[in-house]
């Protein structure tokens, strides 16, 4: 990545939340600074947020239960919100969901702002709701989320297992916005992370202008479904 092409960058602290409207054609790189980060993420069509990331449509259109380079994130309206254009991790979790206040308290004990100040424990669900609230959205807009940098594998019997050490320091994933995408992130620990200690990790974000997906774009060509997904997304802007 050419540093001169970066429009702006920012570090999201551990256990914090963030939101921004990624403009169509820009690329967000998320970098796991220390290794072992988790980034809970939700995506909405900024112009009509009732169109939003749809886990099921994303998985079944591409026959996947993981996300990596070449795959895309579908909305419930047959359009592509973001494409995964680069990934040095190899597996991001679309299944595990987010933690709640009850889960975090049961797992790590209570840690309130009054005593712990900005090191207090935060959870994924409340972080999403606070950030969504800033855009006029709320609990009805909470849908299954992605967890970047985390891996949950599914056994033959359907059992779910969190794999530690999935992401190492400096690893990154890049998302190219195919629409104007309200992107809501938080760096709370993955709900299945077995670490008994509350240990969220920071991530670094860098946004740059990307190259539009041409006829030979790897995400467009990775599956025939994605070719149609790009066509439908491009029609939306005609």
């Amino acid at each position, binding site marked *: 990545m050419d540093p001169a092409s970066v429009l702006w960058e920012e570090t999201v602290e551990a256990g914090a939340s963030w939101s921004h409207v990624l403009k169509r054609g820009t690329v967000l790189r998320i970098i796991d600074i220390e290794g072992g980060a988790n980034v809970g993420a939700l995506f909405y069509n900024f112009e009509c947020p009732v169109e939003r990331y749809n886990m*099921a449509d994303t998985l079944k259109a591409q026959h996947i239960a993981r996300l990596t380079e070449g795959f895309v994130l579908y909305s419930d309206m047959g359009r592509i919100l973001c494409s995964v254009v680069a990934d040095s991790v190899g597996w991001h979790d679309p299944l595990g969901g987010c933690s709640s206040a009850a889960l975090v308290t049961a797992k790590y004990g209570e840690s309130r702002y009054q005593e712990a100040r900005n090191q207090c424990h935060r959870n994924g669900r409340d972080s999403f709701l606070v950030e969504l609230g800033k855009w006029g959205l709320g609990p009805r807009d909470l849908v299954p989320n992605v967890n970047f940098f985390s891996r949950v594998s599914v056994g033959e019997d359907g059992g779910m297992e969190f794999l530690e050490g999935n992401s190492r320091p400096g690893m990154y994933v890049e998302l190219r916005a195919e629409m104007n995408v309200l992107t809501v992130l938080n760096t709370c620990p993955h709900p299945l992370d077995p670490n008994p200690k509350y240990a969220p990790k920071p991530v670094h974000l860098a946004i740059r202008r990307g190259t539009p997906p041409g006829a030979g774009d790897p995400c467009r060509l990775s599956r025939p479904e994605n070719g149609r997904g790009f066509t439908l997304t491009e029609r939306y802007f005609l």
Partner: protein
Amino acid sequence: MSGIRVVESRLDPATAVYSFEIPAGEPWLHEVRKGQYFRIVDLKGNQAVDTLFYNAHDYSDRYSAQDTIREQRNIYLTTGTKLMSTGGTALLTIVADTCGRHDTLGGACATESNMVRYAIEKRFMHACRNSFLKGVTEWGRGLEKRDITCNINFFMNVPVTPEGKLTFEDGISDPGKYVEMRAETDVLAAISNCPQLNNPCNAYNPTPVQVLIWDGAL
């Protein structure tokens, strides 16, 4: 197939307080009160029954696929599964299941996702999310598209592999198989009896299903 466990119910359909046959391709919404038992019968076999649940007292607190599978650390739904809400409430518990395994990752079909998955010309084929939209609009009380989220597909077979692949496979249900739930709180159930003709989820022939409700304390 590993992990399939069949549990039968002792409830007699003759004592049910409610019974209705949902034709293929139709929506159905109905409240199930705390303590009542709710059964869905796959009358003809291999029929996907797309189902959403809401806390009847707060529709913003609704069935959550991710919370449900994470809570039990397993992606398949069967006897013993607690159907969790986004707010952390157990809405219902599956208490009997003669099919043995149900999906909650495949979502509901939509005219839009059919265009992506099959062909842009498929746009005008009937789909579950059109049924859900019709159903919630007729139900009213503020329910709308925003409230249609990730559902359960009863009787549907969507295996995931350790390598992270997901496929729609032939069903493992047969005529007369059923799943039965006990409501742990007052819930609103919303069903789309799936009209999908493009994949094997309904054996390419959508058919009616029966819903039954019994009062509790049995």
